């Protein structure tokens, strides 16, 4: 029937269509079920062992208290320390590569290298971190050595995402700004960066996500310390204590509970905390991206 739009598909094509659709639904349902089971199981095992005390105290053998406050704080410290280095370094190199570097071939080579590095197994960064920061620089197993190693690990990602978002800024904005007599840096600061800030923020939040989820690098470079840093007599001393001492972040604490102590109740409780943080980070990334884009 030429031109008819009421005739349906031929029976064969319809059967094919239905089979395919069923298979796709089944695959999707399977994935969803798996996800729900995983999250449900973690929550089911972990929540009963979560308590205010568990979240807000240091563990003590004498008082028989389990507590992950040091691990939570260590995670926060490592995130902050890493971001402090990664923002200027990553955004700065990305700006240089996309806006200033004129040798296209060198830029392409560097971009290829950063891409390769961002896909590298983290255990390699752990090895390099141990050799370079812990031993060669004499930092030992410490939070600062951990932060430096994480800078190495996340730098390629931040550079890549920043570069990608810089490249999406239309040429017409740049031309418009230059034609009004802006210098190059003025143009970048007033037109390019404001239009790409959402991508930069998203990249940083993703980097934070990787930091929170990282265990291998931190286990080797930041160690397994489960104590709170001593306050000392001055702010400077506090910081020295803080970053000199070895400290386990949440993921490392989880490993510690599960593997060394076979304390699965505490391990699952930590897992719940990590799950909540991961959820929060993803939400923040989405929200920040949308909010900044709107402006």
């Amino acid at each position, binding site marked *: 029937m030429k031109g008819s739009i009421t005739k349906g598909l031929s029976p064969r094509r319809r059967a094919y269509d239905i089979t395919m659709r069923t298979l796709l639904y089944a695959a999707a349902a399977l994935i969803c079920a798996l996800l729900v089971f995983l999250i449900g199981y973690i929550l089911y095992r972990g929540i009963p062992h979560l308590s205010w005390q568990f979240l807000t105290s240091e563990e003590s053998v004498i008082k028989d208290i389990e507590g992950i406050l040091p691990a939570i704080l260590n995670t926060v410290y490592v995130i902050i320390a890493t971001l402090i280095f990664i923002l200027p370094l990553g955004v700065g190199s990305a700006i240089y590569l996309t806006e200033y570097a*004129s040798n296209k071939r060198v830029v392409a080579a560097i971009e290829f290298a950063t891409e390769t590095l961002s896909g590298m197994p983290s255990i390699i960064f752990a090895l390099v971190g141990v050799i370079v920061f812990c031993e060669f620089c004499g930092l030992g197993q410490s939070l600062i050595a951990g932060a430096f190693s994480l800078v190495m690990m996340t730098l390629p990602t931040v550079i890549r995402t920043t570069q990608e978002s810089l490249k999406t800024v239309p040429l017409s904005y740049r031309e*418009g700004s230059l*034609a*009004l*007599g*802006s210098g190059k840096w003025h143009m970048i600061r007033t037109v390019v960066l*404001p239009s790409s800030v959402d991508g930069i923020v998203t990249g940083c939040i993703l980097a934070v996500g990787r930091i929170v989820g990282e265990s291998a690098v931190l286990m080797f470079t930041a160690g397994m310390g489960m104590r709170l840093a001593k306050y000392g007599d001055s702010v400077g001393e506090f910081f020295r204590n803080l970053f000199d001492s070895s400290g386990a972040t949440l993921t490392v604490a989880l490993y510690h509970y599960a593997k060394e102590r076979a304390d699965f109740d505490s391990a699952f409780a930590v897992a719940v905390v990590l799950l909540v943080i991961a959820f929060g980070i993803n939400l923040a990334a989405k929200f920040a991206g949308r909010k900044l884009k709107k402006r």
Partner: protein
Amino acid sequence: MSGNTIIEAKGLELWYGDNHALKGVSLEIPENRITALIGPSGCGKSTFLKTLNRMNDLVPGVRIEGQLLYNGEDIYGPDVDVTRLRKQIGMVFQKANPFPMSIYDNIAYGPRTHGVRSRAKLDDIVERSLRDAAIWDEVKDRLNKSALGLSGGQQQRLCIARALAVEPDVLLMDESTSALDPISTGKIEELALELKNRYTVVMVTHNMQQAVRVSDMTAFFLLGELVEFGDTERLFSHPRDKRTEDYITGRFG
């Protein structure tokens, strides 16, 4: 009917890599007049326009020879400050390109770039520029709204206002009305006619009627060469070159 010459090209040659895009172009652009550049696609109109404010510097592999003088000074001279040159010679692009900021910030962008900080002064410049670009009445109640919410024609007039806000001497317009409806086009043509009392306008256009309606002088380009340059009326009524005649009578690609 030519006044003082403000821009003078002498044997201007330009290459994009191996592509010889301007071949020995010589012409004198008179002050406070509208000069139209016409010619078929790819003949080098935009290229010539962009040599005037050195926007071609952004293209890698560009090579320029010959002389280009602005008020007697060499535009490509060794101590030229490109940012100052571009402040003097403003540009409006084919596609309106407002920044993703408020209308106010768009207009204030140029003056701020050149160091104007006082709010009162900026308010003043913004209002005056928007009035000059005949768009003040349409936007005066929404200065703090995003410029991207304006219509295409309004955006283009906003870009003209933005260019005027830095008080240039010369305004370059590259097919600035080609994406607009007849009414917006008419407004911008009127605008150009008003502006020529205070500015020198150089406009690229594909629309021959537009060239006749607004321009005082017309330059016809073909394959990178300046074929004919002269009084608009004379050029369209008595073209001296056969190729000009073919082009303006539509017998040409």
